[in-house]
C-alpha cells in the first residue's frame, strides 16, 4: 500500500472493509514519518506508542461498535491543548507545559475515533509566514527542502504534503492555514469565524483566530470540518455551522458567479502565480461558472489594520506568560517584576517580542485612537467591501499567496516584507469569512494555490465549488521525498 496517495476517506474505507488494520495503518504512517521527517521536520513530537496503543484498542473492537473515523490517524498543530501531551505553541516559554484538558476540537476528534499521531511545528505563537520563527527548529518544504513550507501552520501543511499523516489541523489568524497549504500544494480550509470552537486553542488574536483542516483533497477537508465544527458553550464566540457538511459531489459550476479581485491582479503577484491563476479562472469558466472583476478597494489598508489589531490582541493575550503558573521561569530573579521580565525575555523569540512591542505601543496612552481606533474603523471598510462584492457575486477567487515558496532565510531580515506576503488572506480574517486554498498548478516546479472565499457560513457551497474545480484541474503530482533513505 502506498501511503503517499492515501486520503483520510480512503483510510476509513480500508479500515471498514478490514483490508487494513488500525495498527497496520498507524504503523504505515509512523514508518513514513521515520523515513522522511529527518528532512522535512514537520513534527515537534511523535506519539508512536500512544497511537499504536489506541490502534490496538480499535482493532480489538467489534467493527459494528466502531465510531465513524475509528482508527484514522491525524496530526495536530502544536497550538491545540491535548491532555497528557506537551503543548508549546512552538515557544520555549511553554516548554514542558502539559495541559490539564483537551481543546474542544481535539475532544471532537477523539469522540469520532481519530487517532492522534503527534504535534506539528509552527511559527512561535502562530506569528509568521514561514515556520522559521519556531522556537525549536525550521520546517522545510517537501517540494524543495531549501524552501520554507509557509506558516504559521507550516508543520501541518508540510506533514500532509509529505504524506506523514492523511490530514492535519492548523489555525488561521491572517492566512496561517491557507498560505502554507498553497506553498505545500495541499488543501487548507479556514472556516467562518465561530464555526469551530476556540476552547483550548492557545490564543494569538482572539477576534481573528480559527481552527481548520489541512488535507490532501477537498473531500477530506469537508469530512474533517464536519468533525470539528459546532457550537461550544465553552467558547462564547462559537456559533457552529447552520447544517452538517456533506461530502462534495458537484461536477460543474453552472449558475455560480465568481468575482476576480482587481486589487490582486496587476503587479500584486509574481508572473508564474498569475499564470496558474489565469488557468484556474479558465477552468471555472469551462465548468460553467461566470467570472467578472470586482474591486475590494480597502484591502491594502486592511494589511495595515491587521498589523495593528493582531499585535494589539496578542500583546494582551500573551501577558499571561509570566512564569507564575506554567511554562518557563527564569532562574535569576530577586523580585517579582524582574522575574516577569527575565522570564518573558528568555522565553519569547524575536518575532513574538516585536509583535508584543507593536501591540503595546498602539494600545498605549496617547496612541490608542490614532492606531487601534483607526484600525477598527478600517476593519469596517473591509467588511463593507466584501458585503458589496457578495451582493454581485457568490464567491471571490484569487491567488492564495502572491509568490511560490521562498528560500529559507530569504525574508527573515525583513519582517515587513514577510507581513506583506499575506495580502490575499488577511482581509478574509478581518471580515470573519470562510476561505479555502486548493492546489491549482505549479510555477518553477513549486505548488501554486488558488483561494476561494464566500460569505459567512457558506462552507458547504465553498466545498462544492472547490471540489468541482479540483476534479477539473486534476493535479496528481506529489513531492519526491526520502525514497532512497535507509
Amino acid at each position, binding site marked *: 500500500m502506498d501511503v503517499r496517495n492515501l486520503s483520510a476517506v480512503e483510510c476509513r474505507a480500508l479500515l471498514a472493509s478490514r483490508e487494513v488494520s488500525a495498527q497496520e495503518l498507524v504503523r504505515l504512517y509512523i514508518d513514513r514519518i521515520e523515513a522522511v521527517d529527518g528532512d522535512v521536520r514537520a513534527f515537534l513530537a511523535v506519539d508512536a506508542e500512544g497511537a499504536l496503543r489506541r490502534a490496538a484498542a480499535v482493532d480489538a473492537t467489534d467493527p459494528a461498535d466502531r465510531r465513524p473515523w475509528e482508527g484514522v490517524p491525524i496530526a495536530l498543530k502544536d497550538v491545540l491543548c491535548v491532555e497528557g501531551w506537551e503543548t508549546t505553541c512552538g515557544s520555549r516559554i511553554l516548554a514542558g507545559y502539559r495541559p490539564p484538558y483537551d481543546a474542544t476540537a481535539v475532544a471532537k476528534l477523539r469522540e469520532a475515533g481519530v487517532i492522534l499521531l503527534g504535534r506539528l511545528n509552527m511559527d512561535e505563537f502562530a506569528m509568521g509566514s514561514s515556520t522559521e520563527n519556531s522556537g525549536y527548529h525550521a520546517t522545510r518544504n517537501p517540494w524543495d527542502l531549501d524552501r520554507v513550507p509557509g506558516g504559521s501552520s507550516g508543520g501541518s501543511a508540510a506533514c500532509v504534503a509529505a504524506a506523514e499523516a492523511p490530514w492535519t489541523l492548523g489555525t488561521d489568524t491572517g492566512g496561517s492555514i491557507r498560505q502554507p497549504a498553497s506553498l505545500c500544494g495541499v488543501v487548507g480550509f479556514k472556516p467562518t469565524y465561530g464555526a469551530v470552537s476556540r476552547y483550548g486553542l492557545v490564543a494569538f488574536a482572539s477576534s481573528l483566530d480559527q481552527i481548520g483542516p489541512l488535507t490532501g483533497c477537498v473531500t477530506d477537508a469537508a469530512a474533517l470540518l464536519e468533525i470539528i465544527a459546532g457550537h461550544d458553550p465553552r467558547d*462564547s464566540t462559537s456559533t457552529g455551522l447552520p447544517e452538517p457538511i456533506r461530502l462534495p459531489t458537484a461536477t460543474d459550476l453552472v449558475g455560480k458567479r465568481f468575482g476576480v479581485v482587481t486589487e490582486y491582479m496587476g503587479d500584486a503577484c509574481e508572473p508564474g502565480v498569475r499564470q496558474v491563476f489565469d488557468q484556474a479562472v479558465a477552468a471555472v469558466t469551462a465548468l460553467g461558472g461566470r467570472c467578472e472583476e470586482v474591486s475590494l478597494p480597502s484591502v491594502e489598508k486592511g494589511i495595515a489594520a491587521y498589523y495593528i489589531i493582531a499585535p494589539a490582541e496578542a500583546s494582551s493575550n500573551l*501577558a499571561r506568560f509570566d512564569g507564575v503558573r506554567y511554562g518557563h*521561569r527564569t532562574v535569576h530573579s530577586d523580585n517579582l517584576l524582574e522575574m516577569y521580565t527575565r522570564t518573558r525575555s528568555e522565553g519569547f523569540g524575536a518575532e513574538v517580542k*516585536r509583535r508584543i512591542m507593536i501591540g503595546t505601543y498602539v494600545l498605549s496612552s496617547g496612541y490608542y485612537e490614532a492606531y487601534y481606533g483607526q484600525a477598527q*474603523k*478600517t476593519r469596517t471598510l473591509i467588511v463593507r467591501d466584501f458585503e458589496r462584492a457578495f451582493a454581485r457575486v457568490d464567491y471571490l477567487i484569487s491567488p492564495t499567496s502572491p509568490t511560490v515558496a521562498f528560500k529559507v532565510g530569504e525574508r527573515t531580515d525583513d519582517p515587513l516584507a514577510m507581513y506583506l506576503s499575506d495580502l490575499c488572506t488577511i482581509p478574509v480574517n478581518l471580515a470573519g469569512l470562510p476561505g479555502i486554498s486548493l492546489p491549482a498548478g505549479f510555477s518553477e516546479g513549486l505548488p501554486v494555490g488558488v483561494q476561494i472565499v464566500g460569505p459567512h457560513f457558506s462552507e458547504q457551497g465553498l466545498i462544492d465549488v472547490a471540489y468541482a474545480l479540483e476534479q477539473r484541474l486534476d493535479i496528481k503530482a506529489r513531492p519526491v521525498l526520502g525514497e532512497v533513505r535507509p
Partner: protein
Amino acid sequence: MITRAEVEHIASLSRLHFHEQDVDRLRHDLSRILDYVQTLSELDLADVPPTAHAVALKNVFRPDEPRPGIEQSAAMANGPHVERGQFVVPRIG
C-alpha cells in the same frame, strides 16, 4: 524613527528587556512597521463605526449552574514552583 527612550518605555510596559546591542535593530524594525501601519491615520474615518468582531454576537448568556471543573492539583501541576497548593513567587520589592 522611534526613540531609544520610547523603546525602553514600551519594553517596560511589555515586561520585556532587550540587550543593548539589539535596541538599534529593534528601533529600525519597529519604525518601519509603525510607519507602515500609520498610513491609516491619513484616512478620514470620522463617520465610520469601529468593528471589534466580525460576527455580530452580543451578550451570550448561560444558566449559572455549578459544574465540575479540573482538580486543584491538576490546575497547579504545571507551576514552576508550587508549595502547599500555592504558586510561590519572589517577593514584590
